[in-house]
């Protein structure tokens, strides 16, 4: 066990993964300088430039080449520098990475990971604050996962590398260095298809993932202080969704608030609400609330705080469900 933040836990996971000679890392600036967030710091030095590969600036090329490597039996881990730069690779991801297994009825597969730092909150330039996980979660054939703790970060990344199918691995930029925790050394895996109940409670069920889990956890505390008992679920895997713990909790609480920083319309909260009402409509004592980013471009540094969901907004939504 070592205390690590999320960036360190991911670095450790990649280092452990690279013990397998079929694992390669590739992306812009991942090697020599260790990635813009230093997640691959030191790995090129340790594992060589043939396996920790600095590529030209070409996202479609990175994903497409990784795909070819994966089909040939390697286990590539491609990095896209920011979620907003995954769009030039969109066609490769949805038309090819997600589909080769079905297209070849299991003859060829793409056991690869695409690591993508995502999310707002660090006052970055335009395109650096995207949270468009829906576009990948809506794509049949992809697994889409997002850890919110150092423990999950390492265990889920190792599980993603081992997974026989392609995994979009989202990394919450805002939490890279903000969350610390004990992380086992060496290899371990965390399941890629189970949501986790991170707080139990009787009055309302909060649902979140990724960077928003910090706000969700703080909301649980804030509510406790005013005598409201909140349950909270960290989805961890966005595709396939595991809503069993959410439904079980809502059956008890009758109230639910779903949180994400992605734009409201077409965001995954809609999916979650639709599924929960399908399975637990008669338990609902109030409409399920959504606290999300707005249907705007993520604002720049000076106005970003108007966009990203806050503890205050989540608490207000909980109050609405309690008063409904």
């Amino acid at each position, binding site marked *: 066990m070592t205390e690590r933040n999320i960036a360190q836990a991911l670095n450790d996971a990649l280092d452990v993964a690279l013990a397998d000679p079929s694992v390669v890392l590739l992306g812009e600036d991942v090697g020599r300088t260790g990635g813009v967030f230093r997640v691959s710091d030191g790995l090129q030095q340790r594992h060589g430039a043939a396996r920790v590969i600095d*590529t*030209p600036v070409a996202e479609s*090329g990175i994903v*497409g080449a990784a795909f*070819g490597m994966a089909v040939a039996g390697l286990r590539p881990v491609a990095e896209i520098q920011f979620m907003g730069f995954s769009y030039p690779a969109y*066609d490769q991801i949805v038309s090819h990475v997600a589909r080769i297994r079905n297209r070849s009825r299991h*003859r060829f597969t793409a056991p690869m990971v695409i690591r993508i730092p995502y999310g707002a909150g660090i006052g970055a330039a335009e395109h650096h604050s995207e949270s468009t996980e829906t576009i990948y979660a809506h794509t049949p054939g992809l697994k889409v996962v997002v850890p919110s703790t150092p423990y999950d970060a390492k265990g889920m990344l190792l599980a993603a590398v081992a997974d026989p199918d392609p995994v979009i691995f989202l990394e919450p930029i805002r939490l890279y260095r903000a969350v610390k925790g004990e992380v086992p050394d060496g290899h371990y895996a965390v399941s890629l298809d189970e949501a986790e109940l991170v707080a139990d409670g009787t009055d309302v069920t909060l649902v979140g993932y990724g960077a928003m889990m910090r706000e969700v956890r703080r909301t649980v505390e804030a509510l406790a202080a005013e005598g409201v008992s909140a349950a909270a679920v960290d989805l961890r895997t966005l595709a396939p969704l595991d809503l069993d713990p959410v439904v079980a909790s809502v059956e008890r609480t009758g109230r639910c608030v779903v949180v994400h920083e992605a734009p409201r319309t077409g965001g995954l909260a809609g999916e979650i609400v639709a599924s929960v009402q399908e399975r637990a409509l008669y338990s609902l004592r109030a409409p399920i609330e959504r606290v999300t980013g707005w249907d705007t471009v993520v604002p720049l540094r000076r106005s970003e705080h108007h966009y990203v969901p806050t503890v205050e907004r989540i608490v207000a939504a909980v109050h609405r469900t309690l008063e409904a």
Partner: protein
Amino acid sequence: MPAPPAAPQPLQILTPSGDLAADSPLPLARIKDLYRSMVAARAYDKKCSAMQRQGRLATYAQFEGQEAAQIGAVAALEPRDWVVATYRDAAAMWFHGYPWLNLILGRTGDERGGHAPAGVNVLPPSITVGAHMIHAVGLGWASLVRGDDAVAMTFFGDGATSEGDFHEAMNFAGVFRTPTVFVCQNNGWAISMPRERQTASATIAQKADAYGMAGVLVDGNDLLAVYAAAHEAVIRARAGEGATLIEAVTYRMGPHTTTDDAGRYRDADHLAEWAARDPLERVRRHLEANGEWTAEWQHGIEIGEAETVEAAVEEAEALPAFDAGDIFDGMFVDLPVALRRQRRAAEDGAG
């Protein structure tokens, strides 16, 4: 708009009249074999066109006229090498081991067509234009990582060179010196768009220069020229000397696909001109001139190859279609719970 500068003459070894303009890179017996393969491919092409007219196939993209470009190139490969090709490259894929059965299944609209037999290193045909070339770069790159020497050959059209992914593939291949052979079949058209309007560069081969890569212009209807260029490219790739771009100048004798009406955008003039450069006929003449061809032999192989195709058609059509649940089973190695629920609903006609 002024015409682009005149293109240099493509490499030619076998002239349209069947004479050798340079030393043959292959023994006669091998040429005869390859000729037979071209006859087989043409039998398949004709059968599929006919089936499409009968409504037994979805849209079909004929490759008539491009047999030498495809088979000549693949003839330079070993079984361990990869072929990554398009909807129009059935001859290339088949010659590298992809069964007629699979090709026909794909054309009937059956996912099982994509399942190449074990050991056949051929990806299912690329339907999107442009995206697949970088896959061949990745496949070849894997050889570098693992220290083996398998080469990846990718086929694409003149239209595909306009896609950004062509550029990224070429650039990666140049920078990382991957063992990749890029075979552009410049067949004069991308649906209704003539080659001259696709790019203002005089040739496609010269684009290689932008990537520090070797570029070769060959007569794509000349089996021996295509083979020679591909053979050299494969040797260089295997030796760690990097990728090559081959532009095989050929012609799409048919419409874009069976649903296209080429009469809307091109007149028939060129067709006669290109028919005179038919890739099969010039090899036939060469064989005949060298005493290796008779009408009876031709008759025999035509019937034999057509029967082989026919047998594949029968097998494909006899295969029972998917049940509702089957459409889920290609998605993941193990179906996640949510998909298992959907699968059940689909089987029950619910949801």
